[in-house]
């Protein structure tokens, strides 16, 4: 069973195979947790988003149409959209580490600045930046995942870059 592809497991999931579901969860949880985290910047929220996404495919596996997209592309879209739609107010996370040497202190400052910069832009802009610059997806694919046109994506990216520059300055 472990050597089956995601697409084969999804077909099995349509007949309510708990084993197929379990393999998909073990195979992809870690990766999609990171995807969700980069958008929401909050551990618990990212975990909840991944859980919601998996429950969605467990309850409605027929939403996936093999002729339209590979499992991973389609699931990526689910996770991204759930992350963008998450309306919760994020708690302010205190980056509270014990700093022992200057190098770590410098690293901590960088993390704080990075966190502050990313947190300062809207979730949708963060998702656009994550898709295009981090995941290195083509603009057309990123736009498709976000459910917007290419021009709208370009506008999101441009506004995000301006906002980040302001914070980092």
């Amino acid at each position: 069973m472990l050597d089956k592809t995601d697409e084969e497991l999804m077909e099995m999931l349509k007949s309510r195979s708990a084993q197929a579901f379990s393999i998909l969860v073990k195979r992809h949880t870690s990766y999609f947790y990171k995807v969700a985290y980069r958008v929401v910047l909050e551990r618990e929220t990212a975990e909840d988003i991944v859980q919601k996404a998996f429950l969605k495919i467990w309850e409605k596996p027929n939403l996936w149409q093999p002729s339209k997209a590979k499992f991973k592309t389609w699931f990526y879209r689910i996770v991204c959209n759930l992350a963008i739609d998450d309306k919760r107010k994020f708690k302010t996370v205190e980056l509270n580490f014990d700093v022992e040497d200057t190098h770590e202190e410098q690293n901590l400052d960088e993390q704080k600045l990075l966190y502050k910069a990313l947190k300062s832009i809207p979730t949708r802009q963060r998702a656009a930046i994550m898709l295009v610059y981090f995941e290195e997806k083509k603009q057309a694919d990123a736009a498709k995942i976000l459910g917007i046109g290419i021009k709208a994506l370009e506008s999101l990216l441009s506004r995000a870059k301006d906002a980040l520059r302001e914070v980092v300055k």
Partner: protein
Amino acid sequence: MKNIYDKLEIPEPNTDLESRIITAAMHNKRKYFFAQSAALAVCLVIAIMVLQAQPSSLVTEENMLSDIDFYDDQYGFYKEIS
């Protein structure tokens, strides 16, 4: 811009995240099963109540015989049966 995300430290998720997801799905499966069973039971009870309220619609020996009596006048072959 890629550097920004490369540098971002991502905290490890809870170690039980995978099992939490699987448990939640199995719990939903049971919930779905019970909801389905309950809906079926309700339908069955309603069907029984409807049938009890209309005894004439039941296929009883009496009703069948009255049908045969009706057809007896029209078709000869029922004569032997009655």
